[in-house]
């Protein structure tokens, strides 16, 4: 699509930092997202966020789901509304065209009933993947959004942890530094290190607050004390059940899988290193010394002329994937630690119940 190319070309020339500093989500879109993600579970789904930016706060006032998970299975190409339909795959092409038709129809419809017709971002469900969402496709989609809308955010919702009792919703953006790297398309070590981007600086999160209009608040007040939300049905109490071990185990297993990914990457990377070594004997000397010393690649202290370096790095495989795995692993491990500490809290509670006998007899 020509428009696609045009905005890419336009965006290369200018860099737009975001204006917003926080995100305000209304009750309706929150519930809609939770519902959509839950209905489609375990398939990951995504959808459009509608709202408006007021000064430095991005207000999300409504949303709608993207087709995809239900019909074609797995979100697929359908998740990216800016997808380039001139791709070689015919099916992807039709999907992208369907998608853009859907977008147009939906936008026309929401406008007719006075819903804010401005796209402010998108939401995605992490499905069954333990809160991990960072994939090549996610980055591409988010890049397209941020390229077109400087304030675009992505709301990431984890339906698994929400069902367990903790609303797990975060708003993320790609950092400006990473946007620059992605725009240049240079995923070599040089590309990342020149922009000072490492795994922890690919995405950044935006603080979320919730708000409800007066009428929605009225509904919430009435619901809060209604039977399905209070008494024995109070989530605050059902959360205390000692059954989260499965959550810890699943997350841990996922983390182990990711660690395997790193190991595979470590197995592949030496192929590049070898050619790297062969092409620059001066570097090779140092490197061999390092290798003998036991440290794998380490920082290389050799001098190298500019042209030779570019040629060397040309054959380097994309570093994006390994950075993504590292970033993802960091967040998954954080989740495991959080789950484990929650579990420990509950354990201690049970422990004190058993030692301080409530019946008063020994």
């Amino acid at each position, binding site marked *: 699509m020509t428009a696609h190319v045009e905005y890419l070309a336009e965006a290369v020339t200018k860099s737009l930092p975001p204006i917003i500093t926080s995100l305000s989500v209304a*009750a*309706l879109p*929150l*519930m809609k997202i*939770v*519902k959509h993600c*839950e209905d489609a579970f375990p398939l990951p789904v995504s959808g459009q966020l509608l709202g408006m930016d007021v000064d430095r706060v991005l207000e999300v006032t409504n949303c709608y789901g993207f*087709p995809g998970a*239900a019909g074609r299975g797995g979100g697929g190409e359908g998740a990216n509304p800016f997808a380039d339909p001139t791709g070689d795959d015919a099916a992807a092409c039709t999907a992208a065209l369907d998608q853009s038709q*859907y977008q147009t129809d939906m936008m026309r419809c929401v406008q007719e*009933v*006075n*819903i804010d017709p401005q796209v402010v971002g998108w939401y995605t469900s992490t499905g069954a993947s333990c809160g991990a969402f960072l994939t090549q496709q996610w980055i591409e989609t988010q890049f397209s959004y941020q390229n077109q809308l400087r304030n675009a955010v992505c709301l990431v919702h984890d339906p698994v942890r*929400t*069902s367990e*009792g*903790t609303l797990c919703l975060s708003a993320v953006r790609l950092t400006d530094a990473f946007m620059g790297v992605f725009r240049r398309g240079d995923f070599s070590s040089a590309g*990342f290190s020149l922009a000072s981007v490492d*795994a922890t600086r690919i995405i950044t999160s935006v603080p979320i607050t*919730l708000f*409800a209009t007066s*009428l929605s608040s*009225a509904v919430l*007040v*009435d619901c809060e*004390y*209604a*039977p*399905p939300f209070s008494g024995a049905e*109070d*989530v*605050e109490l059902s*959360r*205390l059940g000692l059954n989260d071990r499965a959550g*810890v185990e699943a997350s*841990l297993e996922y983390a182990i899988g990711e660690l395997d990914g*790193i190991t595979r*990457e470590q197995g592949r*990377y030496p192929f590049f290193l070898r050619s*790297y070594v062969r092409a620059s004997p001066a570097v090779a000397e140092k490197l061999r010394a390092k290798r003998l010393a036991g440290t*794998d690649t*380490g*920082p*290389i202290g050799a001098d*190298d002329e500019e042209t030779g*370096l570019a040629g060397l790095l040309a054959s380097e495989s994309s*570093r994006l994937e*390994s950075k993504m795995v590292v970033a993802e*692993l960091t967040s998954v*491990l954080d989740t*495991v*630690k959080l789950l*484990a*500490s929650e579990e*420990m809290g*509950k354990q201690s*509670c*049970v422990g004190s119940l*058993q030692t301080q006998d409530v*019946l008063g007899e020994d």
Partner: protein
Amino acid sequence: MSTDIFLSGDDTSVRAVRVAPVVLLGVVDHYMRRAAGKHRVIGTLLGVFHPHDGSVDVTGSFPVPHDENADEIAVDIEYNRTMVDLHRNVSSAHAIVGWYATGTETDGNSVLIHEFYGRECAAPVHLLVNADLAAVATAAAASADAADTSSGAANGSGKTVAGVPSPAAPRAYVSSAYTIGEVALRSEFRPVPVAVTPTTPDKVAMDVLFKNRRRLEAAQVDNIQAGLSRLLDLLTVVGRAVDAVVAGEATGDVAAGRFLAETLALMPRVDSHVFDKLFGDNMRDLLMVTYLCSFAQAQLPIAERLLSVDVKALKQ
């Protein structure tokens, strides 16, 4: 009236309606965004009809533009059809199950709209949500004057003050047509029981919304702590009630007493050695998990370094 005895209304087979909270929020949002001069809004309800027990699950909704005056009504059929098609793209499981309107009572136009939805699905449900808070407030004030026994919000959403339901207590109707032979005499809206039924994720999200409304910041880590302190509060209440009964200040409730005894009996009484071992094992497992996670996290920056060449250093 007496003739009605000999006529049976059409059996619409809908016996109960369950509404997801998101539908109510959708309705009030639509009402808030209504065009100037509109006194009510309508929309389509999506969901699933269970024929075996005659219940309807309403899981979604969307607004439909309409125009009405005293004796004319126009529903945007085209819009409705487009939206249904669009929703079908996202979730094929949901079909039209009825329609919603805001207000406190049905009128002649409701019948016409209901007839329209009768063509879209077999047994449409009409959900009436009162979004007019002023009416609720007036009615509440009136009834508070009449009887001072109102116990405030604690009685919850089921409370209907002088015929004016709160926004969270919608009413549902199905229509029955009275006929003699082929001649349609009249139709009537028959109320059916309706319940707001949140799923677990719904409840979790609403819990955060409740807290947010009370200006409580709900950090994820503090969830357990909040839950425990809530449990403690409840136990204090129970303890106080039991103490009062023991001291003879209040008469004991047999049912409550039995329930308490049963609850206490539920607590497993484990031998302290066995428990210590179990407790220690579990704790050690969790501590090991935490330790390994921290360890792996510490290794990650090194792994990242190993998976790239340091070009900056190379250039210096």
